[in-house]
């Protein structure tokens, strides 16, 4: 949990990451809704087919499998893990057109929708199902169109999309830093999900800054990452004091 995986990127002093405290998460879904609204993630009148829904922040229900009164359940919000594996993330490694790339200055795995050819190889390669495909043309109710975020381009039918750690907010923060004469490379910003979480379960920041909350929490004894054994080196950490939750984070952990 020490973040040693980041040693390959020593040239960069920034590695944005997230810590989600499952002990605090109530599963209210505010993070998911805020993400959907902030990033202009379109939806359809009938969203009952969950395998075709567009979701950047999906909530998974975890259960301990025990009967009453020992039954326990928890919710696990899952954004893109922004994998920091050496050389390439699982998705950036396979994209034939460089439509999904990792910014080595920030560690953010981004997706260039206008370059994406929709081959879905990245979706197939991602073990976290963090990517969704635009099966339909994006549409919003007329009354909602005026509420779309102007900094985020809606994606067209036939391309993949995913969480960008609200990359547009980073750009705005960098612009503000430049105007204020500050170093744009060391700005701190907050993605929509972390901003709205009512229990403060989501912490975001620079994992390489030892004084940041996110770096301290990532070293918490309760911290774990999803599927560590795959060596994808996620930059999203989870906190939980429940052993059964930690056990479900990885096969045979």
């Amino acid at each position, binding site marked *: 949990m020490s973040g040693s995986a980041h040693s390959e990127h020593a040239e960069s002093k920034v590695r944005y990451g997230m810590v989600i405290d499952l002990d605090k998460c109530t599963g209210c879904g505010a993070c998911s809704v805020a993400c959907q609204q902030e990033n202009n993630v379109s939806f359809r009148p009938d969203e009952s087919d969950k395998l075709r*829904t567009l979701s950047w922040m999906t909530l998974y229900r975890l259960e301990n499998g025990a009967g009453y009164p020992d039954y326990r359940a928890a919710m696990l919000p899952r954004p893109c893990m922004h994998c920091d594996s050496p050389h390439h993330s699982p998705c950036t490694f396979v994209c034939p*057109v460089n439509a999904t790339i990792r910014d080595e200055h920030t560690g953010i795995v981004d997706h260039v929708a206008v370059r994406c050819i*929709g081959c879905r190889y990245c979706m197939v390669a991602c073990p976290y199902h963090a990517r969704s*495909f635009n099966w339909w043309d994006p549409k919003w109710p007329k009354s909602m169109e005026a509420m779309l975020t102007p900094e985020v381009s809606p994606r067209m039918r036939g391309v993949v999309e995913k969480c960008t750690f609200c990359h547009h907010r980073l750009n705005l923060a960098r612009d503000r830093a430049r105007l204020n004469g500050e170093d744009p490379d060391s700005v701190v910003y907050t993605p929509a999900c972390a901003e709205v979480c009512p229990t403060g379960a989501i912490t975001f920041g620079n994992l390489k800054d030892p004084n940041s909350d996110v770096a301290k929490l990532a070293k918490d004894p309760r911290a774990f990452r*999803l599927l560590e054994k795959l060596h994808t080196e996620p930059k999203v950490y989870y906190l939980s004091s429940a052993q059964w939750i930690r056990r479900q984070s990885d096969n045979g952990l």
Partner: protein
Amino acid sequence: MDKALIPEGVKRCPLPVFGLWLLFLLAVIAWGIYAGLTVLIKGLNVTGLNNYFGFGLYITVDLGIIALGAGAFFSGFMYYGLSRFFPKLKELHKIINLAVIVGFCCYTGALLVLLLEIGQPLRGWFGYWHANVHSMLTEVIFCISCYAIVLVIEFVPIILENRKLDAVKPLHVFGHNLHEIMAIFAMTGTFLSFFHQGSLGGVPGVMFGRPFAYRTGFFIWPWTFFLFTLSAMACGPAFTALICRIIEKVSNKKLVDRSVYELIAKITGSLLLIYLILKTMDTLYWALDTAPGFGLKLSDFYREPYGMWLLFAELGLCGVLPVILLLTPQTRNSNGLLFLGFFLNCAGIVINRFAMTVEALAIPVMPFDQWAVYIPTWAEWAPCIAMLAYGALIVSLSYRYLPIFPREKELNP
């Protein structure tokens, strides 16, 4: 006009019968085109694909048909390259034209289906423009399109052998000269094919986030890279032999000497045996070392409908059995068993491609996630079936109007 186009000294079915057959094929192709246009206009939401099954029938059929079409490159390699050292391979001359035509149909058909598979077909050219050199799919895009061009070049001199075209002197000279340099194209095709068959294997093999598909390997190539190449070499000529047999049955003629089938049986049987040994070693290493390293055991990868039966069908029924049928002289002497061997050989490789494409995606990687099942829709079946009809159309036209079997006249006096 029709009679004037048919090669001299051979018999073909009456034109009305052939016309009806073509009409049937064109109807199937029209159905496929309708389905394809539906996909292009309405989007991939008309397919059975979803966020878990990013790859489905289109990719499975593409991988399968490209492996089966490997008869073109491997027969060319054996005939133009290896026959200098192994004169027995010169026998392949009797079937090499058909191998090229089958390869042409497989590759061009696969490219057409690939066009439907991508969500933004108009951006298909981005693969050349924004190429990611680390992606196996980039290698596939480059090699397949280059090899498809090579196959067109290889097909042209066969077309120019048509009686009427051959009578035009410039075309005759052009075709003759192309024949003279065909060895160069055959070798170029071999080089390209070795790479793209391998990179198709690399597509699942490099996915280190997918424990079912991921393989360790040599340098930048996962073991699947080599296994896909070898398996394509093992099934490609067998598929050509099967097509040849189907033409023989339909036309009620003998088109190649039985020795050609026997030679192909020995070659493909031996290659399949080597492939099976390596594939078994790969499977054991993956099951006993790679997968446990990810915290998974073999039984975690198989659940109905993608049960362990797939593994047994691939390696046993369609692996060990065809090896026995193709390499045992007694079974090779029986036509039924020989062609059953060829068929099972091809079926096994297609099952392998299915497992590495669809089954690989059905398995939940996150422990709290669930198994998924993929059911293709008509919009996926129709273009794939139409692609087979397209292949049948090209082969039918070629057989009727081109002298593709050099021994046909002697074998059918």
